[in-house]
């Protein structure tokens, strides 16, 4: 753990990503204790008030202004991050586990197993992911669990394809035969010998996927199929605010910035993690 942080301190971009993401997560966790105004209740007297720091015309304490029904933007962003981050990480973890395991199985066994799994991937890639997500959410209803499942469903194929290719090369390496020669079973070889070798690519895919899923979640909310109102979600804030973009720019700008910074921090941290977990990039202790 100590080595982890001392290594992190040496990388400015990794550190920036780590600090930003920790900040967002901390904000999401401690939001209810921050004493913010309700993200749901609007104050019609103060509707469309600009951020306090922009001029004298904003009554009350709305640091980032209010939206068209007078709800506090800051409170909505902070509260929205709770759902967004929880949704995105759950979907990434779920999609990652399923995709990685199926990728290892396809790559290691090859043959018919591989062909079936990869055709499944091809079929899914042929469909626009957004359309698939829309269909499933529309059919099953936009609950949290359904959203996680849908987002994971659009995600596993990316892991499976990349991992399968890696495993194809790995299974021919001599250490696999060595593992058989010390009496390891096929499952043990897949999980204890192959899996550690593909964790790095899986991690890279995961960071890309986390960013993509946050955006996709926002897009689904934007289309009205994500988190349902009146619960705040970044995507829906963008959707609702776009009408006012010429008169009240703060309604879309701040949720947009929140999405941008979250995705950026995840990507920065992911890049660094990839280098960190590559044993060849590590210096000897």
């Amino acid at each position, binding site marked *: 753990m100590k080595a982890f942080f001392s290594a992190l301190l040496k990388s400015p971009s990794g550190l920036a990503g780590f600090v930003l993401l920790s900040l967002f997560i901390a904000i999401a966790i401690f939001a209810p204790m921050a004493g913010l105004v309700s993200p749901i209740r609007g104050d019609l007297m103060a509707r469309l008030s600009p951020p306090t720091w922009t001029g004298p015309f904003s009554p009350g304490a709305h640091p980032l202004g209010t939206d068209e029904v007078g709800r506090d933007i800051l409170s909505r962003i902070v509260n929205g991050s709770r759902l967004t981050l929880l949704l995105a990480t759950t979907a990434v973890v779920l999609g990652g586990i399923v995709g990685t395991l199926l990728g290892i199985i396809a790559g290691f066994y090859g043959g018919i197993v591989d062909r079936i799994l990869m055709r499944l991937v091809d079929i899914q890639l042929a469909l626009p992911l957004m359309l698939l997500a829309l269909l499933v959410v529309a059919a099953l209803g936009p609950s949290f669990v359904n959203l996680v499942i849908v987002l994971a469903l659009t995600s596993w194929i990316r892991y499976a394809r990349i991992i399968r290719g890696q495993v194809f090369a790995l299974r021919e*390496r*001599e*250490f696999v*035969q*060595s*593992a*058989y*020669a*010390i*009496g*390891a*079973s096929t499952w043990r070889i897949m999980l*204890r*010998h192959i899996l*550690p*070798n593909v*964790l790095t690519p899986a991690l890279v895919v995961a960071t890309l996927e986390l960013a993509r899923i946050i955006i996709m979640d926002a897009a689904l909310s934007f289309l009205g199929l994500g988190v349902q109102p009146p619960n705040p979600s970044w995507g829906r804030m963008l959707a609702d605010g776009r009408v006012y973009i010429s008169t009240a720019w703060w309604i879309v700008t701040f949720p947009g910035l929140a999405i941008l910074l979250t995705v950026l921090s995840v990507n920065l941290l992911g890049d660094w993690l990839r280098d960190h977990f590559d*044993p*060849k990039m*590590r210096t*000897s*202790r």
Partner: protein
Amino acid sequence: MSALLELKHLTVEFHTRAGVLHAVNDLSYSLAAGETLGIVGESGSGKSVHALAMVGLIPSPPGRIVSGEVLFNGRNLIGMPERQLRDIRGKEIGFVFQDPMTSLNPVLTVGRQIMEPLRRHLKLSQNAARKRAVELLDLVGIVDPDRRLDQFPHEFSGGMRQRVMIAIGISCEPKLLIADEATTALDVTVQAQILELVRDLKRKIGTTVIWITHDMGVVAGLADTVQVMYGGRIMERGPVSAIFRDPRSAYTWGLLRSLPGKITAPGQRLYQIPGSPPNMVHPPAGDPFAPRNSFATDRCRTEVPPLRQVDGGAAGHQVAAWYDLRSAIANQGAQS
């Protein structure tokens, strides 16, 4: 001495696109406990394949064990359920493979890889396995083993990695250690060190060893018995001194002549066996070496010679040949 390992008529095929490849043909031999057997042969002679086939390590398909028995400690390994074979591999039969650069998993620490068979087979606790791993690394001559355990394979040199592979191979004190070209990828100095290590380990733990190589020199220094293989068959077999002083197979004779040293004078070109190894999809009908053998008789080309005791040879010196090498060489000398 009782036989630790006995092969009876082992035949292994590979089903390839070009046809059926006859990798190992009707191979029989036995190995006494404590013996060191050196198996020599060129690529494709079946020397590695038969060793892997014994413990069910050839991929199937395309590989297939057509017939035969492999009695290890009285139990037949061929046809044994995979679950039981797994308990034998790494515990009773240890392996050391050719390329130490790729035989270790690059993302796992060396310690974890040494500890794996200890935990799997001997059911040692994490701490006990670690202690034993330190002992093992020390035994194979790695300095500062405790620190080394937490390093990754890329932090080790080639020779060190092969020492680690040997440590893994002997970790559960197997009755039989099979080293498949274990020194081929190493430079000569390191090779000598590894051979010394193996001799030393044999003295300490008394393991039976099968040393598979294409290097006659390695065999001379290590083995009790030499077995020369060609085309998936044994061409000649016997005590090391008999094979080197009194070869009876034209193939063994060819291999020995191609070594620099006694037979070749300084400045003279090294001898080379003419032709190339047989295509084992369409093996020669008789003696597999006959097409490259200037002493081959008509019978050699049509009928497979059985392995028989050499007339007037040392005890246990066997050869598979229809011709008599000594008189054949004498005749050829007289003609030219």
